[in-house]
C-alpha cells in the first residue's frame, strides 16, 4: 500500500475527511464539546504524562469537560485544536479563571462568572450569565460529576398559542464584542499546524441540550424536553418555520465568521441534535427529511460554496436509517458513530457509507469498554475499529462521545497506545 509522506496534523485531518489515505491515523480529543474528556480524567492524564501540575481548566461547565491544552495534545498525539464559542452553555464567557472545588474534591479552574450555590443536601446549582438573582439553570447532585439543565417553564406559556419569537430569543446577529472575540481567537491559532475546529452558533436546529436555554435568565416558549419532542409529532410546520428563521440568522453570522476567521477554520460542528436512542430513532426518516434536511442543506451548501471548511454532524444512537439523509444534507463527517447501538455495525457502516461520509468517532465504546473493560479489552476494540474504519481515509479517531468521569486512566492510555501500535509507532 502506498503510504503518503509525513503530513502536518492539519493536512492529516483534511486528507482523512476528504477520503484520502493520511500518513497515519488522525486523532481528536478535546476539539469540541462532544469529543472531549471529563476534567477528572484530564487531571489524571496530565499526571500520567508528567506534565506541569496545575488545575485543569473547565472549558465546558455543563459536562465538566477539561481543556486539553497543547502539552497534553502533544502527549497523546492529537491533531485538532478548538476555538471555543465566546460563551458557555450557561451564558457566561470563560474568562478571569478562579479555583473551584468540585463535589468529588478536585480543584479545577472555572470562569469568574461560574457562580454556584449549594443546598442542605449538597446539590450544586449554577446560574445563567453568572447571575445568582436569576433562577438557577443547572443542577449537579451531591454524588454527580456533571450538571444537568433545570427546565424553567414560562408561566405564561400556552401550548395552543405557540409564538416563534419565544423560541428565537437566543438567536441574534454577531455583536461587535463577539467579532472582537473571534478576531482575537483566530489570531492565536493562525498558522497552526493543527486542524482547527469550532462550533457554529445557531445551527443546532433543536439540539435538545440547548432547548431549555440554560444560558437565558427567563426563557420563554417551548423549553421542556418532552414538550419539545412532542412538537415533532404535533407541530412540524412550527418547527420548520422556526428552523428557517434560525437558519437565516445563522447564515448571516457564518458570513461574518468567514470574513473574520474563515482562513483558520478547518471543521465546523454544525449540529449536535441527537436523533437516535440505543435501539431506534427519535423521529422517523420522512419527518427528518421534511423538517431538517432542507435547512441542513442550505447551511452545508453555503459552507461548501463560500468556505474551505468541512462540516460535522453529531448524533448519538441507532441512526443508521438516517445516514443517507445526512449525506443528502451535505454533511462531510458524522460523529460519534455509536457502534453498540442497533444497526450500527462497524463493517456495514464502512462498506455502505464509508466513501460518502467520514466517520469522526467510533474508536471505542465509552458506555462499556472504556470505563468498565480491561486495558486489553480496550486495545482489542481500538485495533479492530482502526482496521475497519481507517483504510482509504474517511476516519478520524475519537472515542464514542466524551470520555466519562471514573474512566480508569490506564484504559485511556491503553487506547492511545493501541492507536500508536496501529500507526506502527510502538
Amino acid at each position: 500500500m502506498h503510504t503518503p509522506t509525513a503530513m502536518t496534523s492539519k493536512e492529516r485531518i483534511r486528507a482523512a475527511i476528504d477520503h484520502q489515505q493520511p500518513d497515519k491515523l488522525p486523532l481528536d480529543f478535546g476539539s469540541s464539546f462532544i469529543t472531549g474528556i471529563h476534567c477528572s480524567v484530564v487531571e489524571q492524564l496530565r499526571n500520567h504524562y508528567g506534565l506541569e501540575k496545575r488545575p485543569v481548566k473547565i472549558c465546558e461547565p455543563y459536562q465538566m469537560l477539561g481543556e486539553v491544552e497543547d502539552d497534553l495534545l502533544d502527549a497523546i498525539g492529537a491533531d485538532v485544536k478548538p476555538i471555543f464559542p465566546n460563551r458557555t452553555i450557561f451564558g457566561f464567557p470563560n474568562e478571569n479563571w478562579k479555583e473551584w472545588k468540585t463535589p468529588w474534591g478536585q480543584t479545577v479552574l472555572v470562569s469568574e462568572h461560574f457562580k454556584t450555590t449549594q443546598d442542605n443536601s449538597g446539590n450544586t446549582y449554577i446560574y445563567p450569565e453568572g447571575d445568582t438573582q436569576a433562577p438557577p439553570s443547572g443542577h449537579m447532585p451531591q454524588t454527580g460529576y456533571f450538571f444537568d439543565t433545570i427546565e424553567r417553564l414560562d408561566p405564561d406559556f400556552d401550548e395552543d398559542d405557540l409564538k416563534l419569537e419565544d423560541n428565537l430569543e437566543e438567536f441574534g446577529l454577531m455583536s461587535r464584542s463577539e467579532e472582537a472575540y473571534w478576531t482575537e481567537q483566530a489570531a492565536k491559532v493562525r498558522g497552526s499546524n493543527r486542524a482547527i475546529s469550532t462550533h457554529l452558533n445557531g445551527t443546532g436546529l433543536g439540539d435538545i441540550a440547548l432547548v431549555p436555554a440554560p444560558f437565558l435568565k427567563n426563557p420563554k416558549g417551548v423549553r421542556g424536553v418532552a414538550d419539545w419532542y412532542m412538537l415533532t409529532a404535533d407541530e412540524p410546520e412550527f418547527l420548520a418555520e422556526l428552523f428557517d428563521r434560525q437558519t437565516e440568522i445563522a447564515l448571516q453570522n457564518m458570513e461574518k465568521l468567514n470574513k473574520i476567521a474563515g482562513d483558520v477554520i478547518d471543521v465546523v460542528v454544525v449540529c449536535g441534535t441527537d436523533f437516535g436512542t440505543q435501539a431506534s430513532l427519535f423521529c422517523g426518516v420522512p419527518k427528518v427529511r421534511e423538517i431538517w434536511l432542507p435547512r441542513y442543506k442550505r447551511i452545508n451548501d453555503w459552507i461548501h460554496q463560500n468556505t474551505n471548511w468541512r462540516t460535522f454532524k453529531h448524533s448519538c444512537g441507532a441512526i443508521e436509517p438516517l445516514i443517507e439523509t445526512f449525506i443528502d444534507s451535505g454533511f462531510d463527517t458524522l460523529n460519534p458513530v455509536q457502534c453498540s447501538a442497533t444497526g450500527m455495525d462497524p463493517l456495514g457502516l464502512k462498506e455502505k457509507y464509508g466513501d460518502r461520509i467520514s466517520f469522526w468517532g467510533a474508536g471505542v465504546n465509552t458506555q462499556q469498554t472504556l470505563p468498565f473493560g480491561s486495558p486489553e479489552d480496550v486495545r482489542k476494540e481500538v485495533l479492530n475499529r482502526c482496521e475497519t474504519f481507517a483504510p482509504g481515509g474517511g476516519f478520524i479517531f475519537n472515542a464514542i462521545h466524551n470520555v466519562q468521569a471514573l474512566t480508569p486512566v490506564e484504559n485511556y492510555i491503553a487506547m492511545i497506545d493501541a492507536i500508536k501500535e496501529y500507526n506502527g509507532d510502538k
Partner: protein
Amino acid sequence: MNETLEKLVAAIKTGKRKDAKSATATALENGTEPQLILDALTEGMNDVGVRFRANEIFVPEVLVAARAMQKSMDLLEPVLVASGIEPEFSVVIGTVQGDLHDIGKNLVGMMLKGANFKVIDLGTDVSADAFSAAIKEHNPNVIALSALLTTTMPSMEEIVDCINAMDTDVKVMVGGAPVTQEFADKIGAHGFSTDAASAVELAKKLCA
C-alpha cells in the same frame, strides 16, 4: 364499544389531546361505565406500544399519546376512585442516585400508566434509602430503576443490593442507555428492557 369510546381510542392512538378530553367528557355524561372508559384508554395505549416496538412510531408520538391519555385521566380518575376501581399492580419508579435524567424514566412511567399500573414516581437522584422507604410505604409489585450515566451504574447496583437484602418479594427491573442484560444479571436485577414498551411487557411478566 360505542362510538364515543371508539373516538377515545382513536384520539389516544393519534395523540389528539383535545379529542381525548371531549370524548371522555361525553362518555362520562352519557353514564358510560368508568371501567369501559379505562379499557378504551388501555386499548389505545397498547396499540401505541405495539407500533412503537415495531418502529412504526417514535418517542414523540408516544409522548403525545400519553399526554392525550393524561387529559382523559384527569376527568376519569375521580370517577374511578369514587367507584373503587384500582389498578391491580403497582410500580415504584425512579432515576438512581447521582443521575438527574428522566426522559426514559418518565416514558416508562407513562406507558405503565397506560397499561393500568399504579405508578409511584420518586423522581430523579433517588437513594437506596428512599427506595427502601417507598417499598415499606407502598408495597409495590415492581421497582423500576433508570440510569443514563455510566457513573451512576454503581449506584444502581447498590440500590438493587439494598432491595434484595430486604424481606420483600418485590421484583426489580432496570433500564437506561448504558444498561445491558449482562449488567442487569450481574447486579441481581430480575429484569431489563431496552425501551418503554418492552418495559411494560416485562413488568406484566414480573407481576404474573
